[in-house]
């Protein structure tokens, strides 16, 4: 398997090989390896403690792996960079718990996320251009929050916050989007709408979705990776994975 992976490295968008990390003796990731191709929408499932969030932490530079390689776009070594740098490279991340800037308006949240120069002085002397304005309007309507643009993000409902966060990720214009449990706590209608939204987004970029909701994953209809105890248990279509006995034993538990 390692061999095939190293061959795919140059053309893959994201490439993890043999990544391990442990906290106080607990091995959160155990020689994890997998690859995301450009334009791919991938779902990741796995039981609690399987290392899904830790994997995202490693990709986004929040946690440094003890060993292993993480490459972006073939040759950018992500283990040597910090969060801000990785974000500027074009990797966006949505947290498990919706994290938006609560004391800012929805508009300001998007303005902050907009992919513009992020240094101290460019922001200090930043002026909202016509283009930027149009872009924000566009995202507002994509995430269906146009009507509430001047409200504080704190006043949004849980589902709306999730969307706002997705909207912010869109504004960031990443090439790779990591989405952690986007439909947790959403109504069925919202869930269905989110699936549509994600698929729409995946048309222009790669997306990795971590989710427990099997219905939602089925709705996405994409390649699924199942993690357990820090490494890949099975990979393939949802039907293939969910019929794997190891997956059933470890995760689906039926």
């Amino acid at each position, binding site marked *: 398997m390692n061999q095939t992976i190293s061959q795919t490295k140059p053309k893959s968008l994201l490439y993890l090989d043999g990544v391990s990390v442990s*906290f106080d003796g607990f091995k959160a990731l155990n020689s994890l390896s997998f690859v995301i191709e450009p334009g791919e929408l991938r779902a990741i499932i796995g039981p609690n403690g399987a290392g899904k969030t830790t994997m995202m932490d490693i990709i986004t530079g929040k946690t440094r792996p003890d060993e292993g390689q993480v490459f972006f776009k073939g040759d950018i070594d992500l283990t040597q960079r910090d969060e801000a740098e990785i974000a500027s490279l074009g990797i966006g991340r949505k947290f498990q718990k919706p994290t938006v800037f609560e004391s800012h308006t929805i508009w300001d949240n998007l303005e902050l996320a907009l992919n513009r120069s992020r240094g101290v002085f460019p922001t200090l002397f930043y002026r909202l251009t016509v283009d930027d304005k149009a872009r924000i309007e566009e995202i507002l309507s994509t995430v269906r929050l146009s009507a509430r643009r001047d409200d504080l993000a704190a006043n949004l409902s849980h589902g709306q916050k999730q969307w706002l966060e997705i909207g912010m990720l869109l504004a960031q214009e990443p090439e790779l989007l990591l989405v952690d449990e986007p439909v947790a706590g959403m109504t069925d209608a919202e869930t269905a709408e989110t699936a549509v939204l994600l698929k729409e987004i995946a048309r222009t970029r790669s997306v990795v979705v971590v989710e427990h909701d099997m219905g939602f994953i089925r709705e996405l209809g994409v390649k699924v990776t199942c993690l357990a105890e820090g490494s890949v248990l099975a990979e393939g279509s949802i039907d293939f994975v969910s019929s794997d006995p190891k997956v059933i034993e470890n995760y689906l538990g039926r």
Partner: protein
Amino acid sequence: MYRILQTLLITLCLLVSAHVTGLRAADDLGALVSALGTAKLAELDDRIAALAKSGDPRVIPVLEALGEGNLYARKADGGVFLTTEMGASLVLVDPLDGAQLGEVPKGELQKIKVNNAVRRAVRSALGGLTLFSADAGARLKAAQSMRQTPSADALEAIETALAAEKDVTVRKTLDEARAVTLLVSDRSDDDKRAAIKLLAEGGGREALGALSSALSSADASLKPDIEAALQRIEQAQAFWNAGQNVWYGLSLGSVLLLAAIGLAITFGVMGIINMAHGEMVMLGAYTTFLVQDVIRGSYPALFDWSLAIALPLAFLVTGVIGLAIERSVIRFLYGRPLETLLATWGISLILQQSVRSIFGPTNREVGNPSWMAGAFELGGLTITWNRLWIIVFALAVFAALLFLLKRTSMGLRMRAVTQNRRMASSMGIRTPWVDALTFALGSGIAGMAGVALSQIDNVSPNLGQGYIIDSFMVVVFGGVGNLWGTLVGAFSLGILNKFLEPYAGAVLGKILVLVLIILFIQKKPRGLFALKGRAVEA
């Protein structure tokens, strides 16, 4: 030689004058004692020597009383008496036969003034007189005093005593006393060489002093020997100095630990930036003062127990105050740690000013019980009892606290509440009550620390302020939320400080320690024993 002559001459004169003026005196000794009453400060020296010369054991209590300032002369007739204080009056005791002579108001008597020179004279006179005492302790003291202030006259007496001495410790001291004395005598160079050798082997600071003073007056032939001996002792001292620094570091570390340990609960475990922590320490110290005040006034015999009595009381007093603070202020501020800083700062101002209004702004006297006073020698180390007890006490408190948190159900609840309040409360733990008790515990421990710190520091309203910054440094350095971190942090900062102090001086040493802490936090932003993992930053 000159000195002997002088003493003899003066004694003679005294005897003569005593005979002339002292026809009414029953015996010579009485006259000698009475002569103390009329002597000027400068004359006392010689009159003490005269008394000592008599060799009469009855002189001992008189000299002791003189040294302690308990010898008085009656204004009316110049009679000299031993006294003990009884309120505003003095109980008179006949200097020679020890008979009680009744109480007299202070005003009727005149204290016989003494100064350091007189006290030294008394000490060496007593040394000569008690060298043959039946009590080994008294002999040891005598030997020590002869070692301290060598006088060639005493050499023969020391040698006689040495011949008869059986006690090993007294013998060793006497040996050293003899060597030291020999150096100032006119014995042969060979004898002196032997003495130098003995001193070089024994080491110690007294030997160093005696040898270096001998160096200036000794014959040229002896100088190389003395220099070699000095060098040898100094080498040994250098070794012990390092050990002494470690000891001082441990001792400072234990003080830091005591000051910080309550904070490790209120700040480390509960997350309250408790600026009133120092005031809890201060209140503990004031509790000690109150206890001692009552004891001094009513039960003087209990004085040695004062700290044992004060400890639980201080724990209670500060614990209750802590409870009150938590219930009235802190409980509204959970989840807003930085605001606890402001509120507790306000509380600390109020507590300080309250104490200042009640007890006054000046220092209050807290005494050392006898078992905490003084020092003993361990090899070349001087170890003071109070520091030793404070280290023991700090470790005991630490152990008890660790036990409480890790092994009792109360501790389990405390940890549960501080780790996940909501979960704990849904499991039926009464979280507000646990919060209050945890804060009270932290405050109570701070109060107990105050009892110990009252032994080495000022008991004033400002007491707590001196410790608050250091306490925070220790807790943060060790890692918030980790008791072991506080322990290791306290002792490593203490030792670091004491090793820097000889080179950099006290001020610069402290600055360096602070800078090192700042740099350390850059390296390990969550302290020495940080909790690792995903949960921390979430």
